[in-house]
């Protein structure tokens, strides 16, 4: 078995156990209703999380996603309601702005060698501040196009509503997996995270890839902002506060190492849904108070990191029971 899959496997097993536990307590976890709600409610976190997965895989970090979501929402609301533009035009516009924003961050990181943490932190302030400058009001969107989109829904026999947001989430997931595993860009991202100097020597275009990674991340955050705008029918500059950390937590729970090079898009998908499942459980249960979700997510984070650590730097579980590693002895089993 490929050892890289280990963290993903842990995430998967924990998720299944968690879900089975929930199912044993509440039958509704077996219905499409809960599943569809999970997908719909967590699309705005899961979509940027897929972008951030690429960033973290490459060895970087992106703190700007939450603010970009908010900016996008406000921008769409203003352009549609006050300037009377068609939503599709606005979407095209904001997606290009978002992508350009990400490219700029990539340029700062690659060419000026400013740490990604700081650049994307400034990006976060800039996007959130930009949203405030546009407006601090919450603006409702009443465009017929939005109503049309709300009507795109597949209703399961047992009442689950598979909405446009849920569909978009799954579509981005599939595209993300393809991008990560079946394009040179995706493989270059993995290579950079695995060994940046090595990647450079092997001919990976590091600069272009870095810019592409942050552009992708911002693009997906913008897209998530559009999705959120579509489902909320409004734009609000204080929305998605702190979402960037929820996004990163989802990526880490999903088994992607913050050191880069190891991780899977599908893991991020599961990692984003874990807090969702806990949240749903707590809502259904009612006896547990909402702050438990943070504590449980924090504990899960600890458990995942602990397990990853236990499995060794290269997730070689058997290292635990061997004497210190000897270079000459790491012969393939």
């Amino acid at each position, binding site marked *: 078995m*490929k050892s*890289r899959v280990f963290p993903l496997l842990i995430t998967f097993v924990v998720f299944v156990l968690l879900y089975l536990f929930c199912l044993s307590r509440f039958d509704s976890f077996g219905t499409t209703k809960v599943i569809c709600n999970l997908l719909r409610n967590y699309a705005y976190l899961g979509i940027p999380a897929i972008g951030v997965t690429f960033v973290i895989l490459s060895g970087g970090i992106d703190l700007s996603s939450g603010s970009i979501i908010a900016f996008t929402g406000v921008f769409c609301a203003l352009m549609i309601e006050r300037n009377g533009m068609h939503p599709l035009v606005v979407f095209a516009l904001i997606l290009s702005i978002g992508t350009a924003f990400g490219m700029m961050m990539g340029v700062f990181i690659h060419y000026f060698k400013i740490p990604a943490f700081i650049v994307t932190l400034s990006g976060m302030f800039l996007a959130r501040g930009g949203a405030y400058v546009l407006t601090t009001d919450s603006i409702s969107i009443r465009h017929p196009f939005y109503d049309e989109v709300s009507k795109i829904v597949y209703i399961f026999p047992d009442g689950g509503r598979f909405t446009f947001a849920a569909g978009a989430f799954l579509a981005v997931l599939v595209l993300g997996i393809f991008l990560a595993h079946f394009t040179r860009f995706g493989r270059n991202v993995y290579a950079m995270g695995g*060994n940046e100097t*090595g990647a450079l020597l*092997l001919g990976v275009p590091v600069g272009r890839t870095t810019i592409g990674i942050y552009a992708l991340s911002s693009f997906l955050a913008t897209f998530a902002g559009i999705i959120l705008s579509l489902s909320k029918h409004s734009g609000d500059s204080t929305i998605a506060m702190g979402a960037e950390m929820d996004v990163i937590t989802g990526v880490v729970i999903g088994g992607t190492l913050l050191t880069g090079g190891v991780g899977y898009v599908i893991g991020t998908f599961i990692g984003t849904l874990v807090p969702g499942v806990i949240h749903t459980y707590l809502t259904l249960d009612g006896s547990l108070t909402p702050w438990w979700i943070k504590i449980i997510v924090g504990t899960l984070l600890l458990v995942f990191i602990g397990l990853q650590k236990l499995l060794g730097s*290269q997730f*070689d579980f058997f290292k635990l029971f061997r004497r210190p590693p*000897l270079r000459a002895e790491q012969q*393939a089993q």
Partner: protein
Amino acid sequence: MSINEQTQFPLLETQGLTKSFIATLALSEVDFTLHAGEVHALLGENGAGKSTLIKLITGVHPKDAGTILLEGKVIEPRSPGHAQELGISAVYQEINLIPTLSVAENIFLGRQPMRFGLVNMRSANRRARELLETFHIDIDVTRDLSSYSIAIQQIVAIVRGVDLSAKVLILDEPTSSLDRHEVETLFSVIRSLKKRGIGILLITHFIDQVYEISDRITVLRNGLKVGEHQTQELPKVKLVSEMLGKELTDELMVQNGQQTNGESEHETFLQVRGFARRGMMEPFDVVVKKGEIVGLAGLLGSGRTETAHLIFGIEKSETGEAYVKGQKVNLTSPQKAIRHGFGLCPEDRKAEGIIDDLTVRENIILALQAKMGWFNHLSRKRQEQLAQEMIDALRIVTPDTEKPVKELSGGNQQKVILARWLISNPEFLILDEPTRGIDVGAHVEIINIIKRLAKEGKAMMVISSELAEVVDYSDRVVVLRDRKKITELEGDQISENTIMQTIAER
């Protein structure tokens, strides 16, 4: 490639290749030829110019003068990538592949087979398998590179290089961390590359392996080519003497008088029995007495630094025991070793010695302060005084104690590290290549300091590639080869001749 072509032009040729860095001439008018289908070993000690030659050929550095010809045509490699396009690939000791990607992906990174615009991993895996099979390597190419041994990783790097249409393959220290079995595997790959007409330039410090695999040998020393030989026709002793730059003479070189004092006067400071670590060093015993200098001689990679690291606790020994002044001690970390009065000036000054952003003063007092603890703080005045004393005593060239140590020359940095240990007043000092890469004046001074310290009663262990130096100050010389202690020479036995013969003999 026809035999005819081969005889017309060598595959790779350099004429009068010259390169100098800031003040030093790294490579001076070197003519080198590599034929198709030959394994050519490039040998020399540190600073001989081996890596400079390779870097010029692979376009890492631009050359100052001379020409490089590939199959008779002049080439100007601009970068490793460009050299690779021309057909020259290099595989280094620290493998520059991606440990977290699969074997197949490493071979095809950046040039993956595509289908419908997507990477076709199935085809990449199949082709990787086929490529490896031609070398009789049968492994699961979908597994992470890091799950395989260094030997396999090296072979993967070679396969990648060769598949990128390599004509010339440069292998830089490929076997330094391999065990015997892995070396066999690698050599079988090299032999099959040879049969395909690829010219292989091999750098290694394992003399036995040179004789096993190479057809010809070129020896460099101090940037000059000092010899080119058919491997079969060159006796090992002659090779070693060429590398070290010492003529073998019949007369015995007698040492200067310092070690004629009877051995019995010296009290044993450290006794090590059966220290060893798999893949690093075979079991060895060593004794160091107070006021005595033990030299460690051997070629680069023979296990000298490894010996020092095991004794100082940087790497934990897996077997054996150590006694300090007759007491059994535990040497499992530098901190513990330091508590027993040890000190180590490491070989790699930059990475392991100096703290480059700190000042001369801070670097000098560091070990003493660490030994004294956090709260037993040396006052600023005392620090300056100690640092100044050391600057004067060791004649460290620096305008003041507050200069960042990174701005000092190599020799002065070396003295700073020496000073760091001297003020903590150790009983036992290990010096790993204390005179490497420093100018002549500083060189003499450091040797004088070493002698003086021994006279003051310190136990010393000194590693050096300079045989004359080792012969000059050592009371005893431990000779190492291929990570094994071969023998120990004392008194009249210590001469450059005997050391070289010991290194060379089987």
